[in-house]
């Protein structure tokens, strides 16, 4: 009998829930503080790329452009030194 009552008590304890408005209160307070939270631009970039194909294209395009720069420079320089 007491074991059963003990188990019932444990179950009842596990059913305790916070008020429904608590999550909203937390989020309101968090949003107020959110403006002061420093944003990590690297994480922001990774998140943008994960969520948006356009961001992935833009990032790959930029990387390609930057990667091509030395070759463009070399080509330009080769013109200057050619006889």
């Amino acid at each position, binding site marked *: 009998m007491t074991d059963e009552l*003990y188990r*019932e*008590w444990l179950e009842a304890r596990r*059913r*305790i829930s916070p008020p429904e408005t608590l999550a909203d209160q937390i989020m309101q307070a968090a*949003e107020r*503080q959110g403006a*002061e*939270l420093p944003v*990590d631009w690297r994480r922001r970039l990774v998140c943008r790329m994960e969520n948006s194909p356009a961001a992935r294209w833009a990032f790959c395009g930029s990387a390609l452009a930057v990667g091509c720069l030395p070759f463009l420079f070399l080509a330009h320089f080769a013109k200057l030194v050619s006889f």
Partner: protein
Amino acid sequence: MEVEDRELIDRVLAGQTEEFRVLVNRYQQPVFRFVHGLLNHHEDACDVVQDVFLAAFTKLSTYSQARGTFSTWLYTIARNRSLNELKKKGPTPYDALAMFPDSATIDEFSRREFAQELDRALAELPMEQRAAFMLVEIEQLSYAEAANIESTSLGTIKSRIHRAKRRLRTLLAPLVKEVR
């Protein structure tokens, strides 16, 4: 599919603060249960839980998965904040939980009485035994997780729970005789 905690944390740190709501919804109930068990006061528990999530939000960049799961980290903050609250206010009077309906039969009455006595006995446990008992018996965490949250060894957690159960049994002994 459920998004992993780590991914949600990364999104929040990247400026998507609304994603924090998913973490709040995921963990508010266990954290509230734990804090409520430590403080024995509904309103104080709400305040402390809000404080816990705000602290987690502002210090999110310091969280490291190497030290444990996000829930373990939240429980650790909750434990520390609850301790501070108890130090500030002193032990709060026992706040009976309405677990059973008012229209109770004799059997329900004895059940309710038993549950209330267990609540009272839990509230009378020393803080470290109560915290260990809440984490392992109510929250059903492993001994290792509880030891991590309490910053102590596995052996100490086991011994705290053993002592807590023994103490509960002693405190309930008169009632157990009545029930039998």
